[in-house]
């Protein structure tokens, strides 16, 4: 068993004391990010990239990449645990994938069963997280062996599919999402061209030679934009519901176990799909639970399945989302796009070659996710009351400090004021654009995938002597392009027919 052998090595890496520490820091910050308003998983990860770069500065490149990504991945799935806390206790989701949890979770809290809801959310998240990881283990190797046979034409089309999927589901207006994606791709061409060394759109300004740095853009658009939004929508004080007893009863378990199982499976497969991700999966799981229940009228009045299902689903989806990221190098959501930016910053290119070239990094990270999920379960059960206190952090102090951390982080990595100005501009633009339904996720994705798209385009066209038919004459490539087209066209058609289309808003 190759996989088991690799996994065992991964555990050796993940169980190194400093990697345990990194995983711990990651999940604790992730939980906090999930709880704190004004900062979601994508901005949390974006904000922490510079800081992890600083923390891992002294290690050798491969160890630095492993530890850094262990921490950042911890933030990503940790936020899925934390997000439920505020949904349940104050009816205010800390991030978008826990919106649906508030429906029944808050009702449970009002009935004095808040602690039970929190425990079930944590247990469900844990089981779903482990399930997603096991599936990741089973699927990663075979998928990467398949993907390794892809040539540049197939890869180009695959990237197009990834972009189309995220864009198709990204917001209310398809054309706005497409504009944002194209703008992101365009931004990625600025700087010195890697293949020829020619400067593009640099206008002889030295700061532009390196291009518009991904981290700067991500921190600006996600973190700053979100802080600006929170300052404007300053919504007074919330009262926290009583937590009460933590341990679920036998009946609670009986009710929620099937919901957790369904949520895990559904969430995992939705998570793999490009463009879908945790938010969508939690909505779908809630609908599924309500439809499959014998007593659907209990939903919205504190049904424990309404917490268990979606919370399992969003965590399974965040595990599932790691598959396209690690195996294909195509992030399927805003947060995984930011994670991919982190891989690239450490000079580790996600994709089929990842498992061959950087086994230590990838298996270390996978193993650490087992450890991290366990930490989260342990942290979340007894310490939930401590974490819940975070909700009371006064925004007066929290928001300015987040701004100061943005400035520190970007400056620490780039060491010039140009990037600070760029970050500020992105922050203001990000706020204005999101306010008017221009989704940010496609832009970030475009910036991350731009270089990959262009390189494969040029390589494919060099192979075919400039003939664009190569993308259609290769069957896999043609199939991927057709799927991409459907992903854009079908939602538009459905909307035209007056059907409601679920979209990933916020994030």
């Amino acid at each position, binding site marked *: 068993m190759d996989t088991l052998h690799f996994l065992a090595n991964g555990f050796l890496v993940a169980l190194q004391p400093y990697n345990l520490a990194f995983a711990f820091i990651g999940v604790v910050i992730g939980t906090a990010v999930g709880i704190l308003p004004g900062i979601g998983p994508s901005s949390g990860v974006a904000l922490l990239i510079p800081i992890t770069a600083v923390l891992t500065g002294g290690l050798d490149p491969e160890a630095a990449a492993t530890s850094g990504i262990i921490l950042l991945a911890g933030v990503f799935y940790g936020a899925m645990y934390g997000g439920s806390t505020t949904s349940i206790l104050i009816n205010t989701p800390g991030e978008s994938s826990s919106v649906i949890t508030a429906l029944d979770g808050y009702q449970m809290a009002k009935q004095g069963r808040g602690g039970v809801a929190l425990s079930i959310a944590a247990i469900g998240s844990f089981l779903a997280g482990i399930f997603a990881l096991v599936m990741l283990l089973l699927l990663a190797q075979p998928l990467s062996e398949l993907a390794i046979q892809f040539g540049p034409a197939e890869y180009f089309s695959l990237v197009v599919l990834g972009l189309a999927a995220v864009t198709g589901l990204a917001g209310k207006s398809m054309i706005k999402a497409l*504009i944002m994606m194209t703008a992101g791709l*365009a931004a990625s061409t600025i700087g010195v061209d890697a293949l020829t060394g*020619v400067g593009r759109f640099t206008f002889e300004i030295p700061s532009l030679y390196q291009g518009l740095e991904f981290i700067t853009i991500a921190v600006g658009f996600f973190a700053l934009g979100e802080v600006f939004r929170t300052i404007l929508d300053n919504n007074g004080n919330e009262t926290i519901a009583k937590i009460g007893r933590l341990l679920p009863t036998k009946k609670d378990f009986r009710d929620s176990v099937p919901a957790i199982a369904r949520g895990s499976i559904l969430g995992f497969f939705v998570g793999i799909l490009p463009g879908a991700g945790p938010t969508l999966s939690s909505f779908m799981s809630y609908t599924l639970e309500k439809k499959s229940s014998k007593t659907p009228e209990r939903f919205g009045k504190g049904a424990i399945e309404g917490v268990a299902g979606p919370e399992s689903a969003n965590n399974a989806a965040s595990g599932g989302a790691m598959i396209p990221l690690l195996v294909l190098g195509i992030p399927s959501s805003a947060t995984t796009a930011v994670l991919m930016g982190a891989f690239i910053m450490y000079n580790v290119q996600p994709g089929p070659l990842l498992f061959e070239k950087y086994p230590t990094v990838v298996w270390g990270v996978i193993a650490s996710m087992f450890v991290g999920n366990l930490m989260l379960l342990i942290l979340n059960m007894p310490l939930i009351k401590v974490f819940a206190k975070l909700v009371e952090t006064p925004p007066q102090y929290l928001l*300015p400090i987040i701004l100061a951390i943005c400035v*520190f982080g970007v400056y620490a990595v780039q060491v010039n004021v140009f990037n600070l100005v760029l970050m500020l501009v992105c922050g203001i633009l990000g706020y204005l654009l999101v306010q008017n339904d221009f989704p940010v996720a496609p832009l970030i994705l475009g910036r991350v995938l731009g270089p990959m798209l262009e390189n494969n385009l040029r390589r494919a066209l060099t192979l075919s002597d400039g003939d664009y038919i190569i993308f259609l004459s290769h069957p896999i490539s043609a199939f991927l392009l057709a799927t991409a087209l459907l992903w854009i066209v079908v939602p538009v058609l459905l909307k035209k027919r007056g059907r409601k289309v679920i979209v990933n808003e916020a994030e």
Partner: protein
Amino acid sequence: MGNKVFDRCAGGAFLVVGLLFARGSFKISESAYGSQVGPSTFPLGLGIILTFLSIGLLYQTFTYGAQAKAKQQKDYKKLSLILLALCLYIALFETLGYVISTFLFLLAAFQIMDRSKLLLSVVISAFFSAGVYYFYVVTLQGSLPAFPQW
């Protein structure tokens, strides 16, 4: 439907960017390096696509219906002040050095958010700015602008 005015401005802005991008990519020097697909192909294509998408968006804004104006009470004054503070912070970042500029920014921002608890604001600002500087520069040997040399 979106905000008509903003969407028109944004559509116009993206249109200009698209056109400039397409025009700019003609200026990218072609390399002698073999293939027909040089460094300008991709940006040119993007510029053209962006141009067409923006025209599409502008066209769409004419189909927007009359807008129901649901003005929410939003704290624009607070945000503008915070933005001003942030601009000053970035402008003075390298001149004043990390500790002083961060301290001033945080103190100002705390007070803009809520004009109370001045002492606590001072303490937190001082603690954060000095703490980050100590941890990053002294412990991790990173580089941040130090104190100004007076």
